[in-house]
């Protein structure tokens, strides 16, 4: 599999470390309540199809990258820096 790092360009998957769903970007307010925090820390979808997830370019520039891809076909639709996905 190949992932395009927005900084370094297209690279082999072995340069990246998988983290999990991009839900991790949306950290709730400390007072958001148990349910919001439970969702943030524990609950994840497991879709057959389109996902947005976080990859760390550990073997490259150390960028956190949000990858939009398909878990069935492995097609990668889009990548963007977590920093910018956040903004």
């Amino acid at each position, binding site marked *: *599999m*190949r992932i395009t790092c927005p900084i370094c360009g*297209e690279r*082999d*998957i072995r340069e990246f*470390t998988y*983290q999990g769903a991009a839900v*991790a*970007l949306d*950290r*709730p307010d*400390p007072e958001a309540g148990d349910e919001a*925090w439970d969702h*943030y*820390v*524990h609950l994840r979808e497991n879709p057959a199809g389109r996902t947005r997830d*976080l990859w*760390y370019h*550990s073997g490259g520039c*150390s*960028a*956190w990258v949000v990858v939009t891809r398909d878990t069935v*076909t*492995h*097609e*990668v639709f889009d990548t963007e*820096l*977590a*920093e910018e996905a*956040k*903004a």
Partner: protein
Amino acid sequence: MRIPGKGLIDETQVSFRFDGHAYEGRAGDTLASALLANDVRLMARSFKYHRPRGPLTAGSEEPNALVTVGEGARRDPNVRATVQEVYDGLVARSQNAFPSTSFDVMAVNDLLSPFLSAGFYYKTFMWPRAFWEKLYEPVIRRAAGLGALSGEPDPDQYEKAFAFCDLLVIGAGPTGLMAALTAARGGADVILCDEDNRMGGRLLAENEEIGGMPGHVWAEEVLDELRDMENVRLMTRTTVTGAYDQGTYGALERVRHHRPRGPLPKSCFWRIVAKRAVLAAGALERPVAFRNNDRPGVMTAGATRAYLNRWGVAAGKSVVVFGNTDDTHRTARDLIAAGVHVPVVVDNRHDAEPQGDYRVIAGGHVVNSSGRRGVEAVEVAHANGRRESFACESLAMSGGWNPSVHLACHMNGRPVWNDAIQAFVPKPGMIPGMTAAGAANGTFSTHGCLEDGQQAALDALSDLGRKAEADTLPPAGDAPYRIRPLWAVPGRGRAWLDFQNDVTVKDVKLAAQENFRSVEHMKRYTTQGMATDQGKNSNVAALAVLADATGRAIEETGTTTFRPPYTPVPIAAMGAGGGGIGFAPQRFTTSDAAARQSGAPMIEAGLWYRPSYFPKPGETTWRQSCDREVRMVRDAVGICDVSTLGKIDIQGPDAGAFLDFVYTNMFSTLKVGRTRYGLMLREDGHVMDDGTTARLGAHHYLMTTTTAAAGNVMKHLDFVSQALRPDLDVRFTSVTEQWAQFAVAGPKSRELLQGLLDAFTPEDWPFMACGDISVMGVKGRLFRISFSGEHAYEIAVPSRYGDSLYRELIARAETLGGGAYGMEALNVMRIEKGFITHAEIHGRTTAFDIGMERMVSDKKDCIGKTMSERPGLMDPMREQLVGLKPVGAVKQLTAGAHLYNAGEEPVRENDQGYITSNCYSPTLDTVLALGFLKNGRARHGEKIRMVDSLRGLDALCEVCDPVFLDPKGEKMRG
């Protein structure tokens, strides 16, 4: 039998050995062609019935002729004789036969075959259950099987490599050559791979003209042009084994299988990344299932022609030909032209006519073969049912051709059935960026292949944004492909489908009859297609038989799943460089050489190597050295390299706010020139890591992490900075390798530094102070921190001074009655002080568990704070950090042992906690342990039972505070 004047290989003689006999072959021969030239056709015994077998094919799809090449630890089992090239000194032998292939005692299985039908093992070895592991399985494993590994480490070298290109062309037959030529002329970077040692594909095996010259001459001309182009890489002996995501392909290059031992690696596993690919892998011929179709001498017609036209070898003096396409007649013509007798051509098509001077039985079938260790005669049934026998030494058979769709299906796509050619073909788009062309796409004429190859390349060029125009194609054969289905000839007896796993038509029918009607069930019940050849010759025929037995059409029956690799890939090649020392990177400190010179045994700490202890003359056990080193630090001074701890340099106006967010406690309030211990949580509220962070300037901090978690912490900081708080103006980088850092610990540490540092005033360096210093003219840093509980410092200099500073420190320490200490002593001293490591913060402990809940500041938010406040994580009945000392007769405490209330049975339900670290403390002259105990902080003074079921220990101990020594910290602060 070699036919003088025939073949494309030169006359150079090479000597090799097979099963102990010396033979002569020619350079360019495969082991199979060389043995056939020597009239050796019995090369193996079959897997299950131990039937005598010879080569069925002339390529990598070979199911029968598997041999072991090489000797001793270098031996390579299950090598296909049809792929192995001969060279001077090659040693090969047959396998799966005892004592020899010509007399094999296990051939008794063949007589027992009525009892060894599909599902035999499932049905027979059911009972009694206990017999399975002890009796049945070992016996079956010994009886079945192919070649064996040597059982020794493989001394050969392997390699892995990467390549990138615009267009990858898989297969160098007419289609692939034309595709590569077109793309290369259009300026694309092209890699052309072929699994054979010579490119040309079927053009090397057929009498076929292209552009008015023999096909192999045309191929050579194309190759000459390609060789001269800088944008082309030709890779022979390279099998593309798998198609993966985003245009990544795996390929195995046989680098040194065709020559004697030398400096080159045996094979190389390539990962090729291609923007576009053309699958020009050709087609594989199908055998026909009829009674005793597995005798040596029975081979596919395409193989017969390949042996004849490429290697100049006739499969026998007389060859009967049997088939269902015009290839049958091509075979007869080639054989007759070479002077081989063709007694009869059996064509199952009723309208078949002779295309030369030979007899044709139209609408007929070969129904049986006979002979002792090879075919001596075949029996033919005429269309009207009349039987006739023909003496022959070989039978060339063809059931038609299967396009090599394998790679196209590696991403889970299924091929589609094409009725006109009675075969599966790829659907477009099964692998993004890859196009199948030529025979692999079901186009069987040479002209069609050239046209297909050119078009595929033009399409790829256009995709790549390059302009290219079609050249005029050279004239080539364009005869239509006329086929009449021919899968299994009806009749009694065993007719083989899968030669390698000994699966017959009967087995497939039996599977259907026993309701294993799905193709995936049939496969597993019969083992059809599950051998090393993965059913390349047999799967489609088996499907046809299953379709017939279940009353369905072939397309309705469907195929099994195609998975990589196309041909076997040695794990050694895929993992090349990863064995032994290459398994993981090794990191060495600047004091590594000095430590090893002192005779210190090194232990791994993550990727680092650190000294375990420093043995002195007379010390015979590690404990003696360790105890001495502990006393040395406690009484005088010790030196320890602590450079392996992660060091992260953090700068920016928001550095303090950033640290406040990642640590539970406050760092923005830390004064410049001071250091603070910090605790880091995961977002789920559990402890991630701990360490000290120094404030070197208003906007400048230096964080230390534990050795083991340095990488994780860096990743975490990157995440927090980029994904959660991109608003903070902060940047950081790892400086672990840039600084060499040494602990100078013990009551005499001050004295040691006084002589060493330029202008050192101890009063300016209170506990937890930090700042710049000068060490004999070198700028460094000093930290007044302690992991031993002693008055201690850590002194850091740029790495290039590490070795000399370390040696200087040791020399000065020795004059003060001190010296180096290793990991064992370090561990003892931190346990004496109740300092935690990842043995304690193992991922399931909270700040509350280790008694640090007050370190979670209520003035601010931080990672993990909200979740750490969950009631379950603050429950007093949680296991809390405690100290333990033995008080009974057994004076041993062990990490991993569990704790129980005295008087309760040591079972899981009564579990009270566990021990995480233990040591013998020479300072306190007792065994000590740290552990976690339910409600432990409230239970100091209680007696508790430790049970180590693994080591058979049962000890009584007393619960106490985890800080055993100097609880007020007077020594380290003083």
